[in-house]
């Protein structure tokens, strides 16, 4: 399994229109990420890491080149097909957690499963498993406003992992956390990566995250400056 490719990018460019012309956010990216990797797109703000993460996450399309994710050419997917790919194969973790405030922990984690038409019993088991992975079994009935920042991000991880996706994309997941919580979160994700063989791809410039990465893809001005593997 470790040898198959989850992400395969060739000659990827992304332009955004501006007033007079266009701005090139990604300029000729070639990248392969294998299944089960724990990798990160590292670079300063404006280096193109979030844009690349969005394209890999099928939230945006390439302007030029191809991006194949889990065997799907992102540029050729319809909106519905892209949604289906995200629904079945991807999990997202955000900087600001983005939990739905009116739902409790159980319901927030359960949400992605509702889109997969699973039975209530299957959902219940999957949610309990996911919440157990992140160590929040005693907080199932709590609402997000009753949780600390670290706990909220652990719920977000459980939500991303509950459907056991092939690929988890995390955009600055520790930006709002203190050092202790950041390490806890990263250890949890590393454990899930090893136990479930899920591919993790981060977009970050946080040193706390970088030290956990097994592969660092350093971006600068929309291009890969360095690709440090087997760390």
């Amino acid at each position, binding site marked *: 399994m470790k040898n198959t490719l989850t992400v395969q990018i060739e000659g990827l460019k992304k332009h955004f229109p501006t007033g007079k012309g266009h701005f090139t956010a990604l300029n000729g990216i070639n990248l392969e990420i294998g299944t089960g990797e724990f990798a990160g797109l590292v670079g300063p703000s404006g280096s193109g890491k979030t844009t690349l993460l969005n394209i890999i996450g099928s939230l945006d399309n390439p302007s030029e080149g191809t991006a194949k994710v889990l065997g799907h050419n992102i540029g050729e997917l319809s909106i519905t097909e892209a949604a289906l790919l995200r629904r079945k194969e991807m999990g997202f973790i955000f900087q*600001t957690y983005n939990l*739905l405030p009116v739902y409790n922990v159980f319901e927030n984690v359960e949400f992605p499963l509702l889109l997969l038409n699973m039975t209530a019993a299957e959902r219940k088991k999957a949610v309990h498993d996911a919440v157990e992975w992140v160590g929040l079994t005693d907080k199932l009935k709590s609402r997000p406003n009753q949780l600390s920042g670290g706990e909220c991000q652990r719920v977000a991880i459980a939500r991303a992992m509950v459907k056991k996706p092939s690929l988890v994309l995390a955009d600055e997941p520790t930006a709002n956390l203190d050092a202790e919580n950041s390490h806890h979160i990263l250890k949890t994700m590393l454990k899930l990566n090893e136990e479930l063989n899920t591919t993790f791809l981060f977009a970050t410039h946080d040193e706390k995250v970088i030290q956990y990465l097994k592969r660092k893809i350093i971006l600068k001005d929309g291009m890969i400056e360095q690709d440090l593997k087997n760390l």
Partner: protein
Amino acid sequence: MIKFLFKGLMRDRHRSFLPAIVTALGVFLTVVFYCYITGIMGDTIEMSARFESGHVKVMSRAYLENKNQNPIDLALLGAEDIITELEEMNPDMAWAERIRFGGLLDIPDENGDTKSQGTAMGMGVDLLSENTMEVERLNILQAIKTGTMPSKPGEILISNQFAEKLEVNIGDDATLISSNMDGGMAFYNFTIVGTFAFGTNALDKGMIIADIEDVRMALGMYDATAEILGFFPSGYYESELAEEITNTYNLSKEIDPDRFAPVMVTLKEENSMGQILDLADAMGFFMVFLFIVAMSIVLWNAGLIGGLRRYGEFGLRLAIGEAKGHVYKTQIMESVLVGLIGSVVGTIFGLLLSYWMQEHGINVESFMKTSSMMMPNVFKSRITPTAFWIGFIPGLFSSVLGTMLSGIGIYKRSTAKLFKELEH
């Protein structure tokens, strides 16, 4: 999924309770305003119907041609038979005979010489028969300012203004000098037992009200009447019904070549009532339309803002893998549900207040003292079948439209951009 979203809707007061309250309030105001406008317009027309035209009116063909002159010499003969026939043809309707006449009212002094005189506009109505509806229909009891209602033949009411002008008191005698049905002079003595004020110059200037049998005696109109007014049991003018009844009646009289044969006209055909009715309809429609547009903009905006503040949530749902179409569909379903609940609640409360205003009304007598228009002193609302659905236009249609417009942003914005909304 639906259950999940419904749970969220119920828990998030900003998505459910508050929009429902705003919608209910808008719908409530729309219904109350609609009923109020309908009531005012309807009451103004009904007042004219009660005093002047009835919902339908029967006259002789000759009288109709000259009705502005109140030509009693062209009155209907055989009034009792005509009423019997009308009651057989339309058993649900109420029929009332009226005689309008003009003349001179002479007030004698203690020696029998003229103390004062004035031109009088008279109305003979059924004041004294046991089951008369006319006293209530014309609201005479409430209009009496001094004295009492006539209780026996020979007693009349005169308007307060007229009484002051003639310097008469309750109990004074008055002689009507007029022309009778055959064109001869008519003199008849009355006793003034009360004065009245309807609050409108059109009725209060030089008006006298007498029992119709006295007027018949005075003007020699035995078994004759100038007009027979017909009133619908609903108490409101119904245009289509009036036309149907009128056509049926006139068709039955078509073969009679006599110019004194009875002919029926609708309220709409009377004087300029058709124009007034059309104007009332247009005015009512225009005012209600303006109000609905204003309420629609408010509720549309509420729907729009409600949708916009949830872009972050939509971004998350899209990231998780929900299809854009599904997000949009659930947003509209929520809006329909909230709009429906708000509209039903608003309509119920709007109808309740309108019902209260239909029964009691708002007394504007003090503002109408100088008015010369024939308008009611108490403005009452009126609940019509339209009142049951009109609030749903701003309540459901506009708020759903607002939500739909805000939802278009889901399609127009790229998924990545919506996704980015999550960070704000």
